[in-house]
């Protein structure tokens, strides 16, 4: 994801702003990291350049 996505995304649960923590960057693109809700503190992972903003109870991390 590009950093300017931060301007428009929000927590899927309470719609508050998110904080960004970058683990890996490549050429302006954020490849991995974490998003944290400034209100409810829920965290959302960024993996392979794609933020996962599913509500946590919908995450099905077991491979299909």
């Amino acid at each position, binding site marked *: 994801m590009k950093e300017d996505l931060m301007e*428009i995304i929000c927590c899927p649960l309470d719609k508050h702003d998110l904080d960004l923590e970058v683990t890996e960057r490549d050429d302006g693109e954020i490849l991995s990291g974490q998003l944290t809700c400034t209100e409810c503190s829920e965290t959302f992972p960024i993996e392979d350049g*794609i933020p996962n903003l*599913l509500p946590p109870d919908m995450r*099905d991390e077991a491979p299909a």
Partner: protein
Amino acid sequence: MSVREEFDAWAAEGKDRGMEDRHWHTAKHVLARMPVEPGDTVLDLGTGSGYALRALRDTNDAGPCYGLDGSPEMLRNARDYTDDDGIGFLRGDFDALPFATDSIDHVFSMEAFYYASDPPHTLEEITRVLRPGGTAHIAVNYYEENVHSHEWQDFIDIEMTRWSGPEYREAFREAGLAVAAQDTIPDREVEIPPADAFPTDEFETREAMVKRYRELGTLLTVGVATE
């Protein structure tokens, strides 16, 4: 089966590109109607291969375009199909849109809306993220009047919502979207074999196939957020 399991499998089998090819016949007409101005922000719900966003960037000089999908495999592919910095993908669910209120100029969705687990709530979410005056173009091939689509539910484990045209209009209004227009867009491109090729797996008669594609086609409902 979850959205992830179902659609990850589709993406892995290349069905994302297959859908792009088939849906393009009518989706391009939907895209052509959207009043997307240069710089406008567009959200594609259930983006699949991401073709709609690629098209709007190329033809309308759209601003930031976001594709949301529940399937990581779909998103991985979609991301691979473009190197346009103006297009971003994210994983999320139709019922909990991770976008700020009033942040989007236009929402597009093709053959995806009816997978929402709570479609009236998805429409409320669309109304929320649209700025006042922003538009929603929701297109589906699976709808009540299209009797040929009814059996699709048998092939998929996710529960699908089968509304009629009037039900779509009613639900839009309930959610705070003014209905600007609604019609069905025929698919004039799919090849229809000569009469003696019928019955096929899908159609008893040539007339049935003609009705399905040339007459019924894709149901498009256009809404505008009024406040």
